[in-house]
């Protein structure tokens, strides 16, 4: 049984007729020790999906009309607040994108880690354990750094503190939401390496949210690509990057500028990501799709298994490619 199972999860914001659907029927699982990436651009629903795992999206304004989240056998959407406190931290830990805003600016970092320990492992809430955790995440001179305030640390060090805090309770699943996006490329590599090591060492599962396909390639076993609230492609990471099947994934991969490529123009996707809940009818990607057929604007495609372990939400996934992926965007 997988550690995390999300089934047909649907999330809406707002009340009455003023509802906006942010996630629409997401089904995804993470097994023990597995690294799964949720990839997609801003507004695709990847962050709210990840936050839903520990029910961190406030309800209201959010509301789950259908769906189920099974975390370690527990039905997260049915748990009481007390029960949620039991799983937050202990079963699932979080690392957020902006460590500077996620850390408390007026408390020393050591104290913040100790607080996490007091909640989840009171017997281990000692200074020695704090220092051990800081050392584990690769912070030099942890005895000194534990007494620092967050603002005196660099972005990379702050992110390490966040990770130390998240793993303090020894969660079985670590959810990292764009953990490297705010960091420089060289630090990004260091943090990904750290996550990989920790995962090995503690047999943790990892659910990683990213907009960067390069990060997917570095660390993921499987990847789900989201667009406008839906998963459009789900596949083993290597296969997906080698041969993306959904037109969106193909275009997304093409749009990443390559080092040393001598193409005079970058391949872009025309138009813009639709606003949350404002996806067009039919296939949500069809207005921007270079392969779009006549019925794409009316027929809602299903996420179907087209090869073992590969799911694609496009009935035309095996059509040959048009010569040029897409032209330069002209206005909407």
């Amino acid at each position: 049984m997988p550690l995390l199972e999300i089934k047909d999860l649907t999330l809406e914001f707002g009340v009455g007729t003023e509802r906006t659907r942010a996630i629409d029927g997401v089904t995804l699982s993470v097994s023990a020790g597995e690294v799964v990436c949720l990839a997609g651009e801003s507004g695709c629903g990847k962050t709210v999906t990840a936050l839903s795992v520990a029910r961190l999206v406030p309800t209201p304004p959010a509301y789950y009309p259908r769906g189920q989240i099974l975390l370690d056998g527990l039905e997260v959407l049915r748990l009481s607040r007390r029960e949620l406190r039991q799983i937050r931290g202990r079963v699932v830990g979080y690392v957020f994108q902006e460590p500077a805003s996620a850390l408390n600016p007026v408390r020393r970092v050591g104290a913040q880690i100790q607080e996490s320990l007091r909640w989840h492992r009171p017997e281990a809430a000692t200074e020695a354990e704090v220092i051990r955790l800081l050392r584990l995440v690769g912070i030099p001179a942890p005895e000194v750094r534990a007494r620092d305030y967050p603002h005196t640390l660099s972005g990379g060090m702050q992110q390490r503190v966040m990770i130390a805090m998240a793993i303090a309770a020894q969660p079985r699943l670590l959810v990292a939401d764009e953990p490297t996006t705010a960091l420089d490329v060289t630090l990004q590599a260091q943090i990904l390496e750290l996550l990989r090591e920790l995962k090995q060492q503690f047999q943790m599962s990892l659910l990683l949210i990213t907009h960067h396909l390069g990060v997917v390639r570095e660390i993921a076993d499987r990847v789900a690509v989201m667009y406008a609230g839906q998963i459009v492609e789900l596949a083993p990471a290597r296969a997906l990057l080698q041969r993306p099947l959904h037109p969106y994934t193909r275009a997304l991969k093409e749009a990443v500028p390559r080092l040393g490529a001598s193409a005079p123009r970058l391949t872009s996707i025309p138009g813009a990501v639709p606003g949350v809940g404002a996806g067009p009818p039919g296939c949500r990607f069809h207005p921007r799709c270079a392969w779009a057929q006549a019925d794409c604007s009316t027929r809602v495609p299903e996420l179907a298994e087209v090869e073992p372990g590969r799911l694609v939400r496009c009935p035309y996934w095996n059509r040959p490619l048009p010569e040029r992926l897409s032209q330069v965007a002209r206005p909407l």
Partner: protein
Amino acid sequence: MTLLEVRQLQVHFPVRRGRFQRVIGLVRAVEEVSFELASGETLGVVGESGCGKTTLGRAVVRLLKPTAGQVVFEGEDITVMEGAALRSRRRQFQIMFQDPQGSLDPRLTVEDVVGEALDLHRLVPNRGARRARVEGLLKAVGLRPEHAWRYPHEFSGGQRQRIGIARALAVEPKLIVCDEPVSALDVSVQAQIVNLLRDLQQERGLAYLFIAHDLAVVEHVSRRLLVMYLGRVVETGEARAVVQAPKHPYTQALVTAVPAVDAGSNPKRWLWPGEMPSPLSPPAGCAFHPRCPRAEARCRTELPALREIAPGHRVACHLA
């Protein structure tokens, strides 16, 4: 023809503390940076946060006053120019910013955002002419004329960045400093903006100083590159040469750190220790030596000069 020449530019910021705001230190944000930029050319500036690339861009368009050195635009020294004289020169060089949200006044319509510069430089005789100019500019950047009525919040990030470009273009400058123009955008939209900048350059013969932290993007748009570390240029040359055969260990690490998406390419990741030191107290000698795997004794004491190792390719490393 040389459009812009920067000679030995220095920008230092004093750090003040205490009741009397005593100067307790100096952040050397830009140190001895020199380069030339021809009309219609793109020079890329790449480096990590804190390397001084943004300060350099701001000093070039004189949003900052350099501490030392010279900025020469079309043969005229603008380093210490002030007031009306500087304002009139500003028609020739414009800047666009990273955050399209924060750099557009939320209370102005797009017409006013773009048209403000036209008024300031008295480039249009009346409102009708202004409207026509703004509509033409919006079309040039891929927006619709009726967008002129709207407010910045009604647009997506990519569209806002197009507005930023239209505003910079309004006064028909010869140079645009692009400070991280695409790093706040989604990948699919990023490519649109990069292509748009390229088209505009070809149509109008613009020169760009293109500042970004993403080496792949910078290499894509630039003919020549400037790699900065802790305020200094560590490597400069033809973009392709620098990326394919980087000579400075920092550039080499930067090249390998770019996460590739192509499954075929093998990531020979060079995981380097540590982080960029504080520009308040840069290390002695070569600023990169504490992180450099090849550092020798003299790297710790002697500042390497930027020397030419191949035609047009210069590196500041003792070992290159």
